[in-house]
């Protein structure tokens, strides 16, 4: 099968420092690729480069079968690879939830009614239908993340690029996000520090080290440790 993304020898600098220095990767249909690495290793830069928000100094990016170099060449990539921003607040900018989710479909050229219908359908599918008339900036953090994801999914992308999707989510929204993502058929690249999440979701791991992507693997070994969680008074007690 033709890969969705092929990156070879990618070099990207930020502030005079080579964040990516010869990074290469391949994303094939159906793959869920995890990218791990310390803060500042260039994980976000990598995702941004894939849709042309960062300019590559060297190296090539092939997306959906074509070489992509210019803004014009990257534009169709953004319609086919949905990018979920690290901070959902950066992504949501329309007054209401339904407007925001319909924004992408409108950009794809759908008529306003079709766009609204598709937006509503996606919201329903993610069990967010009740939020459709709400004001985006008054949503809770978890709701914002899920609505932002709905906005991306409404474009029916062939691949998802997820930047720290579980950041600052509570248990409920965390599980819902994991359920939603596990049930999606499309290929993904997930950048995260959340090892359990990546372990549940991903099919392959790459580690970003000194600007390069190295193959990695999950490795688990038995630990004896305390299991810390919080019980609310009056909730049913349980044993460990």
């Amino acid at each position, binding site marked *: 099968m033709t890969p969705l993304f092929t990156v070879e020898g990618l070099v990207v600098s930020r502030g005079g420092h080579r964040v990516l220095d010869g990074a290469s990767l391949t994303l094939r249909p159906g793959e869920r690729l995890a990218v791990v690495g310390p803060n500042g290793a260039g994980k976000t830069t990598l995702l941004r480069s894939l849709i042309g928000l960062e300019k590559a100094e060297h190296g090539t990016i092939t997306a959906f079968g074509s070489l992509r170099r210019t803004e014009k060449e990257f534009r169709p990539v953004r319609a086919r690879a949905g990018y979920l921003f690290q901070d959902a607040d*950066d992504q949501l*900018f329309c007054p209401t939830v339904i407007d925001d989710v319909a924004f992408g479909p409108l950009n794809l050229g759908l008529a306003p009614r079709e766009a609204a219908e598709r937006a509503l359908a996606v919201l329903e599918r993610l069990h967010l239908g009740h939020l459709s008339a709400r004001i985006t900036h008054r949503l809770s953090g978890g709701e914002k993340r899920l609505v932002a994801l709905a906005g991306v999914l409404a474009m029916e992308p062939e691949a998802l690029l997820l930047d720290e999707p579980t950041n600052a989510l509570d248990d409920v929204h965390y599980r819902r996000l994991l359920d939603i993502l596990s049930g999606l058929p499309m290929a993904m690249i997930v950048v995260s520090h959340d090892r359990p999440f990546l372990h549940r979701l991903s099919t392959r791991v790459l580690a970003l080290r000194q600007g390069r992507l190295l193959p990695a693997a999950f490795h688990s070994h038995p630990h004896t440790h305390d299991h810390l969680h919080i019980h609310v008074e009056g909730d049913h007690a349980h044993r460990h």
Partner: protein
Amino acid sequence: MKAPGFDRMTPRARLLATLILTLAVVALRGLPAQGAALAGAFALALISGQALRPLLHRLAHVEGFMVLLLVMLPFSVPGTPLVTLGPLVLSAEGLARAIGIALKTNAAILIVFALLGTVEPLRLGHAARGLGAPVRLVQLFLFTTRYVELFRDEIRRRREAMRARAFARRTSLHTFRAYGNLAGMVLVRALEKAARVEEAMRCRAFDGRLPAIGIEEGERGILAGPGLALVVGAALIALDRLP
């Protein structure tokens, strides 16, 4: 190249000199003195040692604001007609007024760029406070310079998010609505951010005054700079008014 003369002066001296010179420039009435002022201001900008290209770029922004006025003025001031274009009459007095305004504004702006262009906003704010500017005005100035970058960043991030969802500028209702939403959301976020910053400042015992810590400027150049400015300003006005 570092500005040898001006950076040795304290911001307060530089601000005072700027004030004196710009006031002298705006008081000029005749073209010769206005022309001399612009030439002098340009020389001042060269001496300041700042890169010329960004300076001219900034000047072009100012020109953009004035272009309408400069085009309208020759036609709207009554006087001796020079050219008649149908109902429009270009008057000699109007033309002279437009040229005068162009010369004076550019001279004044160049003086500000030359003398204050390299002063950090924080120090400039404290210098203004030292010269008796109202506290609220100074605070407004300091917050503005602090947050301009922040909002530029905010707008950049949001536009990237729009592009990431395949947004392309067109002449369409969708484009206008999207930009309207963008502007609205930046304002809403600005307001929220301002409220959060204020809370955070109040949590650290902010009582409405910004203390000036670590800025001990002294009085270097407080006499020399403004004194020289006074002499030059007086000379310009003398050139302008004396027969």
